[in-house]
């Protein structure tokens, strides 16, 4: 699905003015403070046919992620690792501005940035997902469908992927006579950390967390920072034509760490483990 050119949401000038005035007074049009994220709700195991799934609501942004586990050949150069593939699609049901068609650059960026956070944090210990080194490994697909768009798809999709992966049950495959057998048993996934993505946007000289669609339509720049359970930064992505000063970047990184830990606690509550 592509967010087409005509999709650029034009915010009414009188709204824009109110937004700027309100933000410089420290409050947003939806009554949030600048550092406040929207309510996060997660429902797990919504897709029984998947090995794990999560339906995430971040404000009015809704994303479903489903985990499918198969076996296959490892990626080239990663012979001793399971394969992890993360995709995202912004469905045409999700917004009046989306036309059916192959994914455009924004949607591809979405999938890649979410993938980067999960992969670089080594959330899944892929070395434990090898059946025959160099030949047969677990292939884990996490596919995301965005159901309703109201800003910050990056964080919402990331939370969906992380919750679906952390709560999934991996089938136990065994090798017998060079053939893969599904034993019918399941196992916990080898989770090492919970990566949390926190997106900050810049409107004028102000920095806001978790933008909604209207705020995104007014933003000059965006910075997504993913931290792991230790509080280290594992992935970043700056977006849009605006810029950040050095101090802004450092401040944003600190905030992403603090906010990230808050959200990590929430995610753990929803997932229901101490992982």
């Amino acid at each position: 699905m592509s967010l087409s050119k005509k999709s650029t949401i034009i915010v009414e000038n009188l709204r824009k003015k109110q937004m700027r005035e309100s933000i410089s007074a420290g409050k947003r049009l939806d009554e949030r403070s600048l550092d406040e994220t929207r309510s996060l709700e997660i429902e797990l195991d919504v897709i029984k046919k998947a090995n794990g799934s999560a339906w995430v609501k971040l404000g009015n942004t809704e994303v479903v992620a489903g985990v499918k586990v198969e076996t296959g050949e490892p990626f080239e150069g990663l012979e001793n690792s399971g394969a992890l593939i993360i995709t995202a699609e912004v469905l045409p049901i999700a917004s009046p501005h989306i036309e059916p068609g192959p994914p455009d650059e924004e949607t591809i960026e979405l999938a890649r940035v979410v993938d980067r956070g999960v992969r670089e944090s080594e959330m899944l210990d892929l070395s434990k997902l090898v059946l025959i080194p160099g030949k047969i490994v677990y292939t884990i697909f996490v596919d995301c469908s965005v159901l309703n768009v109201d800003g910050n798809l990056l964080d919402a999709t990331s939370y969906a992927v992380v919750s679906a992966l952390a709560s999934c049950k991996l089938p136990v495959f065994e090798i017998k006579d060079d053939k893969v057998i599904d034993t019918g048993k399941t196992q916990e996934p080898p989770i090492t950390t919970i990566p949390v993505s926190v997106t900050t946007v810049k409107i004028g000289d102000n920095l806001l967390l978790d933008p909604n669609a209207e705020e995104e339509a007014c933003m000059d720049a965006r910075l997504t920072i993913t931290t792991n359970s230790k509080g280290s930064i594992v992935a970043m992505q700056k977006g849009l034509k605006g810029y950040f000063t050095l101090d802004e970047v450092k401040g944003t990184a600190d905030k992403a760490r603090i906010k990230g830990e808050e959200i990590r606690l929430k995610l753990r509550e929803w997932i229901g483990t101490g992982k």
Partner: protein
Amino acid sequence: MVQSRSLINESGKRSDGRIIDELREVRIKVGIIRNADGSALIEFGKNKIIAAVYGPREVHPKHMAQSDRCVIRCRYHMSPFSTDTRKSPAPSRRETEISKVIREALEPALILEDYPRAAIDVFIEVLQADGGSRCAGITAASVALADAGINMRDMVSACAAGKVDDKIVIDINDTEDKEGKADMPVAYMPNLKKITLLQLDGELSPTEFNTCLDEAIRGCLKVYEIQRSSLMEKYFGNEKGLKE
């Protein structure tokens, strides 16, 4: 189709415990997608499907517009995690055909002349697939169209009937679809009494065909009652009647 094992036991129960004229559990929730003009989530057995309607709205590209009527576009799509083995996100030939027959099943109910030069988009996303996803998709789409306030001559309700173990049963499930002898999805306008979708896989004698069609329509009427109560619930809540 050749059936290799019996799918109905001695006490008349089918593979999922239903009797021959029993629907799976059906639930419809109206207005699930905030951004859409109309929407519905249907759970039909293990099917979990969202239908969303946008429109009538401007046609892009403009040359697709028709001067005397509204254009209706339909996309039936399955999420990669919706099936037992992962499905590629790219649309398959099957999805393209189903999109077409669903559009043609809905079109007779829509008063498209009321919206010249505009377009109505119907998007059906299968989050979890079970047998009968096209029927469930049509049923949800019809509710979403009514929710969007598009002028309609009637609702469209859909249900399949088929042949399993030499018996005609309604609402074919996944196993019966794959292993049974015949599967016949039907969409029906319940008040106008008109059939808008009819497909058949498998062999039916003339008598069996007649029974099968009658049973499918009985199924459609049951589905219609659920569509109706879901819309009444959303728009009128607990207020069952009007105060005079």
